């Protein structure tokens, strides 16, 4: 008797190839989904970080950099250092303070010759999982400049910016 050969193995082969191709495509798609989700979450965190940085900056601008006050208002901490003023910069750049000389070792990075004043501020926002750190980098008669960095819970910088605020003022 002459029986017809089964076509099932052929269909099976075809399906196996189809599944393999699909598995590859699905793996790429899943990676893309996960990456997109991570990017979206990171973006949201950066947005919160920038909003918090802005809050600290606005308080500093409004109080002309009264860091103890801002620290009290936002439940943060502040620390002291020497302001980097034009005078201290001149002192640092003076020819008798060459690198390696005895005097050079006495000049701190933040400046020298000025009074010790509050120059850094940290504010924790546990509800957003971020920490804002503001460090005054430069100071003169009418202006203070500062670096602002926002850290995530892992201690990585997720947002950073620079700011400046005016000291004093006069009626126009």
């Amino acid at each position, binding site marked *: 008797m002459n029986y017809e050969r089964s076509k099932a*193995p052929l269909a*099976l082969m075809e399906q196996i190839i189809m599944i393999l191709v699909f598995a590859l495509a699905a793996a790429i798609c899943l990676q893309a989904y996960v990456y997109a*989700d991570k990017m979206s979450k990171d973006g949201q965190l950066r947005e919160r970080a920038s909003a918090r940085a802005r809050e600290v900056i606005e308080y500093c601008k*409004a109080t002309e950099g*009264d860091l103890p006050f801002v620290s009290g208002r936002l439940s943060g901490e502040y620390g002291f250092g020497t302001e980097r003023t034009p005078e201290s910069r001149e002192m640092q750049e003076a020819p008798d303070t060459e690198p390696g000389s005895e005097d050079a070792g006495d000049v701190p990075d933040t400046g020298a010759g000025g009074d010790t004043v509050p120059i850094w501020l940290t504010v924790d926002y546990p509800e957003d999982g971020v920490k804002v750190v503001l460090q005054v980098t430069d100071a003169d008669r009418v202006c203070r400049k500062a670096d602002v960095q926002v850290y995530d819970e892992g201690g990585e910088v997720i947002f950073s910016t620079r700011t400046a605020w*005016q000291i*004093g*003022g006069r009626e126009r």
Partner: protein
Amino acid sequence: MDMRGKLQKHNIEGVFVLLLFAVFAVTVVAVLALGANSYRNLVERDNESYNKRIITSYVAAKIQNHDVQGAVRVGGFVRPEEEDGVPTLHLYQDIDGQIFDMRIYYYQGYIYELFTTESNSIKPDAGNPIMEATSLALQEERFAQGKTLIHIHAVDANGLEDSAEVTVRSESGVAS
């Protein structure tokens, strides 16, 4: 092998192929559903973030655009110094010698904007509704340094809260 045995073998092979195809179809649908869900989450998160921020960003931008000495006030709807139940941001402008007042306030489910003359006793519903919201709170804080900080707290139509602070830089004048 007899005829019956061969037919049985064909049936089992056919069922296996069919089963494999069914598994494949289910997996395709599952991956598609996962993708759709992932996309929906992204869009929802973005929309939520945008809606949450838009009111405070709008008010903050308006304050910064009108940052002229004495031009930014917070208080009652008709006059800043008279509380009348509609907390309002007043942004004054001098146009050809006449003082105009742009008022931004929350009233009956919407953030309104109204441009009128100073101290005009017009009704709050005369303004243009800008966007849906649940509330908008504005607070003015004056500092010893002569500067003013405006606190903005907004709740959007979906109940999401956001707050922002804006310093009115013009208040203390120019440093010299």
